[in-house]
C-alpha cells in the first residue's frame, strides 16, 4: 500500500514536472505568462493503520486545516504532500524515513507518533539535515541528547507530560505513592519525569511496579498495590492498556482508598470505553477540554465543521506543526532552500496555539503550561494550571 501511494505521488510529481516543462516551453512563445514557483513538498510520515491510526489521522487533518485556512498556500507557495504510513513499526523507521527524504526528496518531514519510529526518523533527519517537525512522539532524546538545529517538536517530551503530577499529588496530601507502568522506553522516561518532580517536593515512591509490554493482566500487581498501602497511585498507560487498567483498578476496589493519578494519556480518547470507572480521575497534560482560550474555541469549531469530528490533543499538535512551518516559510519568503533562515525564524518563536501560547525552547521543544484536568462525564475538564511554562530539561542537548 505504501508503495502504491508513493508511486502514485511520484506519478503526480512527474505529471506536474511535465506540466512545468510545458509551461516553460510555452514561455518562449508567450512572454506574458509568468512561471509558477514549484510546490513545497511536505512529507507526512505518520501511522494510518494499526493502533495509532486515529492519532495519525487527527494530526494530518489539523495540519491540512491550517493550510486550508491560509487559502491552500504558505508564503505564496502551494503545497503538495507525500504521504507514508509508518504503521508504528520501529523496525521500518529508518527505511521509511530515508525513502521519503532521499528518494521522494521532501522539503520538510512531518512525523511521527510512535517514539520507536521517531528514533529512526531522528537518525535520518540528523544525517540528511532535512527540516523536521515532530507532531507527537515524546521520545526524550529527540530534543535532548540527539537534538539538532533542523529538528523541532510541537508536542511534548515524555518527561514534560508527568513532571507536574508529583506536585499536584503532594498538594492533595499524598506523601507516599505506588508507581505502575509498562516496562519499555517510554514507561522508563515517564517514571523518571514523575520521580524527579515528586521527590523534589518530598514525596516517597514506596513501590514501583513494572509490567512486560504489552501484557494487560494487571491483577497480580493490583494486589501488590493493595498490600503496599500507599496514599495514592501514579501511572502511565495509554490506549487499550489505559482502558483496561482504569477499569481493573476500579473493579479491585482500590480507587476509593488509594486514588489514581496519571498523565493525560490515561483518559484521553478512552473515556467512552472506561465509563464510570474513570470518573473523577485527575491527570496532567498540555491540553484539556473547556479551556478558556479563544483560539481553542475557534479551532474546535473549524475542525468540527471540516471533519465532522471533535479535535483532540493530537490534532492541536498537528495544527501547530503547520503554524510553525508557516512562520519559517514567511521569514524566508517561501524560499525553502534557505533552511538556515527558516531555522532562525522558528527558534525562540511563540506559537499562538489552541492549547494556549507556548514558546519554542533552545532545544526546540515547547515551553508550555501543564494543565490539571479532571474526568467529568466524557470530558477531561480543565481544573487549573499545574505548572506554568514547564520546560523540558533537555539533558545532553548541546544547542543554544
Amino acid at each position: 500500500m505504501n508503495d502504491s501511494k508513493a508511486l502514485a505521488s511520484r506519478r503526480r510529481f512527474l505529471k506536474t514536472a511535465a506540466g512545468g516543462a510545458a509551461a516553460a516551453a510555452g514561455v518562449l512563445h508567450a512572454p506574458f505568462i509568468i512561471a509558477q514557483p514549484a510546490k513545497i513538498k511536505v512529507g507526512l510520515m505518520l501511522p494510518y493503520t494499526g493502533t495509532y491510526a486515529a492519532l495519525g489521522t487527527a494530526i494530518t487533518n489539523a495540519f491540512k486545516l491550517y493550510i486550508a485556512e491560509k487559502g491552500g498556500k504558505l508564503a505564496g507557495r502551494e503545497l503538495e504532500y507525500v504521504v507514508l504510513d509508518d504503521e508504528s513499526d520501529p523496525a521500518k523507521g529508518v527505511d521509511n524515513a530515508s525513502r521519503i527524504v532521499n528518494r521522494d526528496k521532501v522539503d520538510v518531514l512531518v512525523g511521527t507518533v510512535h517514539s520507536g519510529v521517531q528514533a529512526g526518523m531522528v537518525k535520518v533527519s540528523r544525517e540528511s539535515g532535512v527540516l523536521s517537525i515532530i507532531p507527537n512522539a515524546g521520545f526524550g532524546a529527540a530534543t535532548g541528547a540527539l537534538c539538532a538545529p533542523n529538528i523541532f517538536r510541537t508536542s511534548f517530551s515524555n518527561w514534560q507530560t508527568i513532571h507536574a503530577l508529583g506536585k499536584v499529588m503532594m498538594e492533595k496530601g499524598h506523601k507516599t505513592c505506588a508507581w505502575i507502568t509498562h516496562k519499555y522506553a517510554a514507561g522508563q522516561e515517564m517514571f523518571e519525569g514523575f520521580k524527579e518532580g515528586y521527590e523534589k517536593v518530598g514525596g516517597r515512591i514506596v513501590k514501583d511496579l513494572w509490567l512486560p509490554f504489552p501484557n494487560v493482566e494487571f491483577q497480580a500487581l493490583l494486589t501488590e498495590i493493595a498490600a503496599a498501602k500507599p496514599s495514592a497511585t501514579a501511572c502511565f498507560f495509554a490506549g487499550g492498556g489505559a482502558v483496561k487498567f482504569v477499569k481493573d483498578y476500579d473493579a479491585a476496589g482500590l480507587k476509593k482508598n488509594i486514588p489514581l493519578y496519571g498523565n493525560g494519556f490515561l483518559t484521553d480518547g478512552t473515556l467512552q470505553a472506561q465509563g464510570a470507572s474513570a470518573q473523577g480521575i485527575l491527570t496532567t497534560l498540555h491540553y484539556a477540554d473547556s479551556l478558556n482560550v479563544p483560539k481553542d474555541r475557534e479551532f474546535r469549531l473549524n475542525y468540527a465543521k471540516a471533519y465532522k469530528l471533535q479535535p483532540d490533543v493530537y490534532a492541536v499538535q498537528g495544527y501547530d506543526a503547520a503554524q510553525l512551518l508557516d512562520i519559517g516559510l514567511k521569514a524566508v519568503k517561501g524560499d525553502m532552500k534557505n533552511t538556515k533562515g527558516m531555522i532562525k525564524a522558528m527558534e525562540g518563536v511563540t506559537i499562538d496555539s489552541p492549547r494556549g501560547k507556548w514558546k519554542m525552547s533552545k532545544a526546540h521543544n515547547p515551553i508550555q503550561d501543564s494543565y490539571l484536568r479532571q474526568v467529568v462525564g466524557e470530558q477531561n475538564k480543565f481544573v487549573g494550571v499545574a505548572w506554568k511554562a514547564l520546560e523540558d530539561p533537555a539533558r545532553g542537548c548541546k544547542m543554544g
Partner: protein
Amino acid sequence: MDTAIFFIQVLNSVQYGLLLFLVASGLTLIFGIMGIINLAHGSFYMIGAYLAFSLTGLIGDFWLALAAGVVVAVLIGLALEWLVIRFLYDRDHLYQVLLTYGLILIFEECRSLLWGDDVHGVPVPPALDFSIPLTENLSYQVFRVAMSAICLAIAAGMYWLIQKTRLGMMIRAGSVNREMVQSLGINIGLLYRVVFALGVALAAFAGMLGSPVSSVFPGMGNQVLIVSFVVVVIGGIGSVKGALVAALAIGFADTFGKVLLPQIAGMVVYLLMAAILLWRPQGIFGKA
C-alpha cells in the same frame, strides 16, 4: 508477602489460568485432532470480543449476546472450514501457516472497516457488577468469580463430550486414523467441519466472556495467540486435560513471576515452557 495477599495471588493465578484454558482449548482441538496449525485462532478471540461489544449494545443483555455470539461464531467456523481450511488437510504445515496468517490480516482489516480502530468497553452484566471485600482496600469482582466458574463448567463439558459421547469417540478415532474412520462409513469431512467450528466457537466464547474485563481493542488477538500456543505445547498437543494443567501452570508462573521476579517477568512463562520441554519434549500429557 503475608498469607492473605498470598492467597489472593493464588486466586489471581487460578482465574487467569482458567481463562487461558478457555482460549487454548479450541486451539488444541484444531491443532491436535485436525493437525492444522491455526494462527488465526487469536483473531477468533478478537472477533468474539467485538461481537460481544456490538451484540450487547444491540440486544441490551450480556448473556443473550453471548448466546447469539456463539451462534455467529459457529457459522463463521463452518463457513471458513468449507471455504478454505478443508483444502489444507493433505498439505504440509507451511501452507497452513501461510493461509491462516493471511486470515489474520483479513480479519484485522475487516475489524478496522467494521468497527474502526478505537478502544471499546463492554459493561459488566449488572447482576454480577459488585465486589466482595478481601482486605481493607482490595476487593474481588464477582464477575471474575463467575468467569472462573464458567471456564470450569466448559472444561467439564469438553471432557464429557470427548470421552463419553459418540461424537467424541468419532473425533478421537478421526485424529488417529482419518482413512480408517472414513472407510467405516463415517463422514469425516463433516466431522472435521464440526470440530473446526467448535474450536472457533471456543475462542470466540473466550473473547466474549472476557470482554467486560479485558476491554475491546485492535490487535488484542495477537497477545492471546502466542500464550495459547505455549499452553498447547506445554500441555501436549491435542490433550484437553493437558491444556487445563498447562494453562493453570502458566497462570501461576505469570502472576508470581510479576510479583517475585519483576525484572524478568516477561520471560518467566517461556522459561517454564523451556524447562517442561526439556523434561518432556512431547508436553505434559502429549503422546510420545
